[in-house]
């Protein structure tokens, strides 16, 4: 990896963002023509902005890493991230826009006419926002380490400081043009290298062997182990070691590793010969014999079918509760435009998500040692250097680094804006409306603390947890709020607290690392399967029990939500 190019790419991304956000926009939109000035944002542009804000580090880096390590099961991630917008399109987009709400707490208050519901919704916006900020920091830390070799906490901290400063100074207002630019940038940054990589793969004779069997090294490969590793070896493996393996020091000596678990000390160099099987980390042992291309044949989870459903429910239903996505719909002039916008978003995101699996598959061929060291999230960034090398590889890597940085910046700033907004407005009103800056610092400091404490969850997994909480709390609120007249404030609060609270508790337990395995582990790691129905159930039961307290304005509100604009009068 060429540091100079990569650092330049990051600098270019940041400068371009600031320029478009500040100068370019101001000049282009200053006019004396009212017709030009009052043109609303066309659905395509708004859709690009939504996609730009939505495609985060998890999409850019995490999906490819998971596909590399776990195979086709993980394709459910891109499918789910996209299909969430289908649910949003069908059930939520237009009525939410017509409600006139800017944030999710606004919607809760508007529909249920209760400050208590508003406060409960605010608490969950903050919770989901914090959970979703965490993987952005993780991704940034990883990227910076790959570029410069800096310790992993520096990158996340750097992005946290940059985003906090920018948001607090008012420089990262969620401007449609900037976010649309970020989408184009991310798509280009992933598409152009992908074309080169696929061409190179073609030139290499389109090898495809390792898709059906455990991955093997295709050439002499030297791996430097940074943190101490425990590896599971299935069949005898000869490797040249400089360093410490199983408490024995070696100096450039060939070692025969017997089947079983071996401990590699940090700082050890391993050299593998072509054709030898890639060893797996001990904790993912079950995957050793699996077939990568066949679904449900064995991933790291003990209950792959259940986990898959957990993932599907969380991502399909969680998108509608992402605070930074929902506020973007306010830009649409009416419900119809909001619906069209969502449709375009579906197309744009689908196009984007075709690419990460390509990187995952190529990484399985060309950099299988990442599976061994567990650094699979870096797969996308390292691939051009490995496959192409030279100046071209360096430039493509720089492009990918720039794209990854765009991903952290746009998503993290959008989230920080939303969380800080809710903190100032609803949860800490004693701070005063003007203390937005203080709230910004608070909005970022909690995920930073969690980021420094938790390190070993893959980026896409942390995102999955954020989606699970969002699906368990906001999906029932939005779906029932929009489609069920008998929802009461008491029911909504109970459903939010029960569904969302259960998901939050499960997330906390998973992050803290217990229980160790089996069904309890699976249930807590993928809570959405049970916590979403729980949320719905609690909301419905309590609403029916408090049927006398249906908000008085329900009829009028429902009419406003469902009738096209212009039909109400």
């Amino acid at each position, binding site marked *: 990896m060429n540091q100079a190019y990569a650092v330049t790419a990051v600098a270019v991304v940041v400068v371009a963002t600031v320029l478009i956000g500040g100068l370019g926009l101001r000049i282009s939109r200053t006019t*004396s023509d009212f017709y030009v000035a009052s043109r609303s944002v066309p659905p395509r542009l708004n859709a690009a902005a939504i996609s730009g804000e939505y495609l985060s580090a998890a999409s850019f880096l995490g999906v490819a890493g998971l596909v590399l390590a776990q195979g086709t099961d993980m394709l459910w991630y891109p499918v789910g991230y996209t299909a969430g917008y289908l649910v949003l399109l069908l059930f939520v987009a237009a009525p939410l826009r017509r409600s006139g709400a800017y944030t999710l707490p606004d919607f809760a208050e508007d529909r249920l006419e209760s400050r208590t519901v508003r406060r409960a919704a605010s608490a969950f916006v903050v919770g989901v926002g914090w959970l979703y900020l965490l993987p952005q920091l993780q991704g940034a830390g990883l990227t910076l380490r790959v570029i410069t070799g800096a310790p992993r906490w520096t990158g996340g901290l750097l992005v946290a400081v940059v985003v906090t400063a920018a948001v607090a100074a008012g420089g990262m207002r969620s401007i449609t043009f900037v976010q649309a630019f970020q989408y184009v940038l991310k798509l280009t940054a992933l598409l152009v290298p992908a074309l080169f990589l696929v061409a190179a793969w073609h030139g290499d004779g389109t090898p495809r062997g390792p898709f059906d069997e455990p991955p093997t090294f295709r050439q002499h490969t030297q791996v430097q182990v940074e943190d101490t590793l425990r590896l599971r070896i299935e069949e005898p493996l000869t490797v040249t070691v400089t360093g410490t393996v199983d408490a024995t020091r070696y100096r450039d000596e060939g070692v025969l590793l017997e089947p079983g678990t071996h401990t590699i000390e940090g700082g050890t160099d391993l050299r593998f010969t072509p054709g030898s099987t890639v060893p797996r980390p001990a904790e993912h042992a079950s995957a050793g014999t699996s077939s990568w291309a066949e679904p449900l044949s064995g991933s790291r989870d003990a209950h792959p079918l259940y986990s898959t459903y957990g993932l599907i429910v969380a991502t399909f239903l969680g998108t509608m509760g992402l605070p930074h996505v929902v506020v973007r719909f306010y830009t649409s*002039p009416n419900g119809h435009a909001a619906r069209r916008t969502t449709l375009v978003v579906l197309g744009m995101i689908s196009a984007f998500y075709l690419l990460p699996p390509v990187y995952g598959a190529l990484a399985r061929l060309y950099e299988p040692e990442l599976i061994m060291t567990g650094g699979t999230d870096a797969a996308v960034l390292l691939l051009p250097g490995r496959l192409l090398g030279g100046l071209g590889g360096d430039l493509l890597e720089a492009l990918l680094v720039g794209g990854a940085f765009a991903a952290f910046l746009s998503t993290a700033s959008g989230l920080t804006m939303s969380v800080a907004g809710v903190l100032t407005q609803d949860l800490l009103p004693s701070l005063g409306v003007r203390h937005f800056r203080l709230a910004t610092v608070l909005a970022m400091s909690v995920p930073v603390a969690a980021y420094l404490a938790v390190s070993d969850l893959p980026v896409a997994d942390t995102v999955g947890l954020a989606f699970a909480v969002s699906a368990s709390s906001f999906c029932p609120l939005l779906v029932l709020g929009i489609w069920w007249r008998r929802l009461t404030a008491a029911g909504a609060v109970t459903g939010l607290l029960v569904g969302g609270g259960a998901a939050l508790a499960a997330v906390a337990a998973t992050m803290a*690392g217990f229980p160790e395995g089996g069904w309890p582990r699976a249930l807590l790691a993928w809570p959405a399967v049970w916590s979403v129905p729980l949320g719905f159930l609690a909301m419905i039961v309590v609403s029916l029990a408090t049927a006398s307290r249906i908000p008085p304005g329900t009829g009028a509100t429902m009419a406003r939500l469902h009738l096209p604009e212009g039909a109400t009068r």
Partner: protein
Amino acid sequence: MTVLVTLGLAVGSVLLLAAGAALGHVAGRRRGAGRRALGTPVERATFQTLHNASLAAPPLRAGLTEDTARKAARRLRTLLGTDALCLTDRSTVLTWDGSGEHHTAGLMTQVRQVLETGRSEAFPLTCAQEGCAIRWAVVAPLTGDNGVVGTLAAFGARESPVLVRATSEVARWVSVQLELAELDHSRTRLIEAEIRALRAQISPHFLFNSLAAIASFVRTDPERARDLLLEFADFTRYSFRRHGEFTTLVDELHSIEQYLNLVRARFGERLAVTLQIAPEVLAVSLPFLCLQPLVENAVKHGLEGSVARSHISIVARDAGAEAVVVIEDDGVGMDPERLRAVLRGEGGPSTGIGLRNVDERLRQVYGDDYGLVLETAVGAGMKITARFPKYRPGVHPSPPSLRTRPRQR
């Protein structure tokens, strides 16, 4: 371990925020109840009475209707400690709280006397039902600005001078609340009247001048005259529309455009306008006709006493959960002291009704934090900043009036 602790803290804080918000709400409601343990028995009784009265006040402040009467009656009955309590208006029984609801039937004829004389009365009741505890009624009038508006009736098992006295006092207190409700109501009506006045204010001078300007084009440039007339029709249609208190920024901008086109027809190139509108805030709801008067003000200041070109800029910015609109002119400006007087409503009849009206309406809808911010000095132009929250409960724009023609561009 640190991992566990930090995580616990992070997640715990989220849960605590949620729980705290819920608890705070409940505690806020019950705080009054917790204070009962203070003071001597007499003092406690006083506290209790005041507390009950304070609970009955909010519904009554919304006026005397079936819904508000039902809510208030519960509290009033606790206050009086009677078996049953009833509120009527001039024609029907609004609510009956407590036992013996069958007495509702003949009640209106029995209270007729009180409604007519406006004096309290106590009388025995005959009741065929067994075990009915209600034998005596005390009826006191509720008075408003226009005489008796209803009655408060309390019912007990026996004749009691204490109950008579207490009922009259409570009725008097209720009357005060109802008068306050009437006051709130008239304040709203006043503001509505001011909006109407504002609409009327647009008319005479501006309308004559516009029509005269249009007339001057009829021969020389009939096409332009036609456009201006249509512009004029659209503008008046919007300004005089009757329904809806709120509109959207984009509709308000259209009205401003039409206004400025008509002004330009008169002053030609002397007036230059720049706009910088963030497309994200076009959909923001705001009170009807709250920007147009500000622009009108800027135009007046810009063209007043200067022959040179005048420049107005209108900027709408996205600021998170708010939209910020800044209207700036480079005209004659104003003495800040005089401006302050105008905003207090002491500037004389002709000056700045627009500014004051907009300021008051913004404060009424969004709260005092959202008043206009004006920066000006004599000869230094004027800068008006208004902020609009993107969402506020109850603020929903009415659909735009249909335009008379498709825009020709």
